[in-house]
């Protein structure tokens, strides 16, 4: 197995007025293809900072970050944008859909910035993704017309559209009730079963329990890093789902 994400002695410091805050202190970590990692820790432990680093939204103060065999710790802003659009998928706590766009248009956005011409083929793919997450009958709805769970499913579909190496989820169930949380987690689990690498930040043990590997952080350092042998039972329909997702993403769009 190859490490799709590898960070070495990653340090991130902020200057807040005259004080230097060390959010990450020489963190090293490797995540392999197909893993499902939960990043846990109290607030201020550096888990969000680490996720931002992994998401190429920021550059480290020192250390190296190798994403899919490319060192991305010292590249310029435009290249970072390109990396995000090609190799990463984001799922946020507050869904972060664009309110002016319909479901399908929201799913299309990463393709546009990836340098893909939007055509019938890409549209077809977005529609299929929407169907895959169970929103086939809401293609032209605006985010405002959807429930929280539905919005998060659109966000999941959007994170998949560019067939990313890694899906980064920041408290994906933070705004959802327990029943819809379960739905979303089942979906993420299914994605993982289909081979997607997922790194998820959460502070809830219930949610972390879905992951195969749990990393706990404290004071900008990794405290514990263990496999979760009692990971929750997989959905019984997983096989069918992962088959259709694989075939969908296998189709070249460029």
């Amino acid at each position: 197995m190859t490490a799709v994400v590898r960070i070495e002695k990653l340090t991130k410091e902020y200057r807040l007025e005259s004080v230097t805050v060390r959010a990450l202190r020489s963190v090293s970590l490797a995540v392999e293809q197909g893993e499902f990692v939960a990043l846990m820790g109290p607030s201020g432990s550096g888990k969000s900072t680490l996720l931002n680093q992994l998401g190429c939204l920021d550059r480290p103060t020192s250390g190296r970050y190798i994403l899919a065999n490319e060192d991305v710790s010292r590249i310029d802003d435009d290249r970072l944008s390109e990396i995000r659009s090609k190799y990463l998928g984001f799922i946020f706590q507050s869904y972060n859909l664009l309110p002016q766009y319909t479901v399908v248009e929201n799913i299309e956005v990463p393709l546009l910035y990836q340098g893909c011409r939007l055509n019938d083929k890409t549209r077809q793919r977005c529609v299929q993704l929407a169907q895959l997450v169970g929103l086939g009958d809401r293609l032209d709805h605006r985010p405002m017309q959807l429930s929280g769970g539905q919005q998060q499913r659109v966000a999941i579909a959007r994170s998949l559209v560019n067939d990313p190496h890694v899906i980064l989820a920041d408290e994906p169930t933070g705004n959802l009730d327990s029943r819809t949380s379960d739905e979303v987690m089942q979906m993420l689990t299914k994605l993982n079963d289909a081979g997607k690498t997922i790194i998820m930040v959460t502070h809830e043990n219930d949610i972390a329990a879905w992951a195969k590997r749990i990393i706990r952080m404290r004071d900008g350092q990794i405290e514990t890093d263990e496999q979760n042998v009692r990971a929750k039972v997989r959905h019984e329909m997983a096989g069918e789902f992962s088959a259709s997702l694989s075939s969908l993403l296998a189709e070249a769009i460029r």
Partner: protein
Amino acid sequence: MPANINHFFLLWDKSRRSFVLAVRSLWLHKLRSALSVLGIVIGTGAVITLMAFGEGSMQDALEDIKRQGATNIIVQSVKPPDDASSQRRTMTLAYGLTHADYAKFKQLDTIVGSVPMRIFKQELRELHRMHNGRVVGTTSGYRNVNKIELVNGRFLNDSDDDDIKNVVVIGADVAEALFPFQSASGKTIQLNGHDFIIIGVLKERTPLSNAGGISEDYNSDVYVPINTCRARWGAAVYLRSSGSRSGEQVELHQITLTISDIDKVRDAGAVIKDNLERDHGYKKDWLVVIPLDRIEEAKRAKDRYMMLLIVIAAISLLVGGIGIMNIMLATVTERTREIGIRRALGAKRADITLQFLIEATVQTTVGGVIGALIGIGLVFIAPIGSELIFHKNLPAQLNAQPVIMAMSFAVIVGVTFGLYPAYRASRLDPIEALRHD
């Protein structure tokens, strides 16, 4: 597909997306958008309207002047300001151009034509019929200078003048009043107790507005040879107004001189002025009008007006641009989170810049188009309104150039004033922007 062409199409896709989004958010915030582009609307509309009216009135003035002839010099008699001696009511005030002046002008070698005019009110009689008109004493040259057209007969000629014949050419209204339902040609009318034979009748024509020369009505005028006029009426003409018996003695009211060459008009004008100054002494009872000067004056006035318009346009577009900048800065703040989302999903700084630049430009372009439509509408409506309410003719000349110019300025303003907000948007830190609510 070659890489650069693909690049172009991609840019097109992104621009189209941004354009659709811009139109959508414009529509979503109708009132806000309307208010923010109001400056641009008013600026564009005002410039187009003012340009059209400016151009129209300039054209009008120029045409008027040209009708007087660019190679002409018009010398007029002017009533001098009252002095103490004019207190005596019975005094006949003698002033103005004289036959001596006229004779002198004719000898200047740059002058190829000269038409004297002597004008006074006169009852025109034919047996019991009467018409209040004017007698114009002049020469054959008058016909060319004033572009006279006749329905029948002929205009005065040189032998009429030399032989002091009692002949007259009459205006259309005069013919209508004195000889209804019959041809006036060859008939006789009585002027000041003398019989005059009608040798020609003028075509009906619209009066010429007074742009420098003496205003001329034509339709109620009758034309007699200048020498005949001098012989039958004498040197003085008494204009008696009720309650006052003061009279005026004016030999000639106007002399229109035609200069051989347009380049010599100015010099000739100076010579004429010198002559008049010398001959008339202290009495400033004459005026030299040079239409050529007036053309240049009008052109200068037009240039000044256009400069003023450009300043107005610049100011209003500046104000409009600041309005756009203001609203775009507010929009960027309002949509910080959206910017963060787009950045996370892979938008480059240039993509964000492009999006907000397009949004600003769409706003000002829409504003420019609305302004242009309003402006063009006003150009058509205002003259009608002016005609109905003030009974005044408001000339307007709508050219494509100012319309295109005003609209392209609106677009340029959008790009210019959208640049800073768009730049601000593109410099936002994606993490900070995502956290924004």
